[in-house]
């Protein structure tokens, strides 16, 4: 198997998948260097000792032109071999820019724009029909008035979702009004209104090869949730029914790269309902590594053009519990990132930092 010399990685926020992917690649023995691409200088992954250098990127909403210009400039200095994208918000732009990435010699495994669109929250019911997957009743709404009508039709409580991020459970019209205002202003219209399925949450992370063949998949049950309902603790499980759902999803999508199925196993009928398909590695990806399938490493090998065989069976009953630590660094690192656009931990910053001690 071939390793690149330099991998650029995104999603370096505390609850984003970037650092778990870095950890997974180190676990697989990746000997090269990591370059961080961030949108916010306070993303803690920028200051991880293992991040050789980090750069501030323009937001994808500013357009592919700005993003690619910055990336090309970084590439001239760093010679990026592989780019691993871990954020929904940039994937559309990167997917459309894949031909240019290839020209630059930056390898990546990205879904096509069509694949990305077909698993979007807005088109999930249509995909579910094609793949014979159950989804909660879903309405796509373009106005507040329409949202209120749909919520009454579906029956409260309902889940209100943004096109890319955020999901809020609302139990009455007043909560719906607040959720619509926040989500529509943050992520734009349309907004997704979905029937709430009370149940237990399961996720599956899977990897599709170059032709959309299934190379690996690890299922987990969520044991702990954070305030936004994201997995904070989980355990690997193996249910043949989940495996079948993944097979149907990947067969329909012909997905290239890592993706995540979010499912709810309903209390009332015990059946799995597909809630979302996320087009990238989830923040809990390291559980798959600990259980025995290093999907990020396989992704990088795919990007390098290696022949990747289906991954071995994984261990059921592997527990993952997230722990927070405070990452510390001198303000000069932060200063370098916000002024010259990059922080290089190999070269100490020039900001003189005074010492101080409170007198007793």
């Amino acid at each position, binding site marked *: 198997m071939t390793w690149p010399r330099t991998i650029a990685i995104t999603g370096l926020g505390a609850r984003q998948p970037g650092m778990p992917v870095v950890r997974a690649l180190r676990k697989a023995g990746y000997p090269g260097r990591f370059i961080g691409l961030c949108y916010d200088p306070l993303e803690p992954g920028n200051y991880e000792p293992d991040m050789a250098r980090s750069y501030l990127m323009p937001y994808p909403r500013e357009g592919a032109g700005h993003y690619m210009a910055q990336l090309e400039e970084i590439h001239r200095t760093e010679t990026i071999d592989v780019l691993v994208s871990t954020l929904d918000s940039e994937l559309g732009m990167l997917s459309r820019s894949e031909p240019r990435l290839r020209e630059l010699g930056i390898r990546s495994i990205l879904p096509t724009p069509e694949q990305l669109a077909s698993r979007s929250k807005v088109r999930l019911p249509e995909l579910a029909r094609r793949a014979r997957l159950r989804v909660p009743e879903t309405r796509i709404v373009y106005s507040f008035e329409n949202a209120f009508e749909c919520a009454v039709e579906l029956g409260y409580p309902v889940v209100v979702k943004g096109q890319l991020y955020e999901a809020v459970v609302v139990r009455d019209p007043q909560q719906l009004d607040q959720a619509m205002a926040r989500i529509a202003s943050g992520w734009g219209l349309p907004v997704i209104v979905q029937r709430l399925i009370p149940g*237990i949450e399961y996720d599956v992370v899977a990897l599709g090869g170059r032709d959309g063949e299934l190379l690996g998949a690890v299922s987990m*049950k969520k044991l702990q949730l954070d305030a936004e309902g994201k997995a904070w603790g989980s355990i690997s*499980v193996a249910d043949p029914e989940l495996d079948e759902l993944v097979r149907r999803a990947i067969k329909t999508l012909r997905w290239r790269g890592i993706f995540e199925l979010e499912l709810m196993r309903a209390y009332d009928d015990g059946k799995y309902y597909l809630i979302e398909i996320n087009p990238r590695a989830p923040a809990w990806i390291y559980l798959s590594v600990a259980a025995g399938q290093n999907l990020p490493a396989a992704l990088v090998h795919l990007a390098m053009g290696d022949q990747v065989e289906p991954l071995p069976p994984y261990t059921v009953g592997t527990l993952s519990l997230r722990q927070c630590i405070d990452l510390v660094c001198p303000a000069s690192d932060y200063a370098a990132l916000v002024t010259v656009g990059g922080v290089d931990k190999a070269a100490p910053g020039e900001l003189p930092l005074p010492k101080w001690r409170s007198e007793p």
Partner: protein
Amino acid sequence: MARNGERVAPKRLITLTSEGFLLDGATGETYTLNATGIIIVRALLQGQDSREIWRDVHAACEVAERDARRDTDEFLAQLRVFELVEPAQ
């Protein structure tokens, strides 16, 4: 209730430790069993039928046969409710 001599099997991915920690590998649900529960699940994992199981309980726990049989039946019924066992092939 289990019929006398009925054979049920634990689901394929059930794991039981000697201390009574039971993991359902399909759902991720976990349970802790008391000593009697351990005897019963261990016997199920060895492929015993319900008659053999309540006899084990009777012998190990020094309770009347009638009590051993009732408790075993009730426990097997609970395992069914939690979908931890299925009819043996």
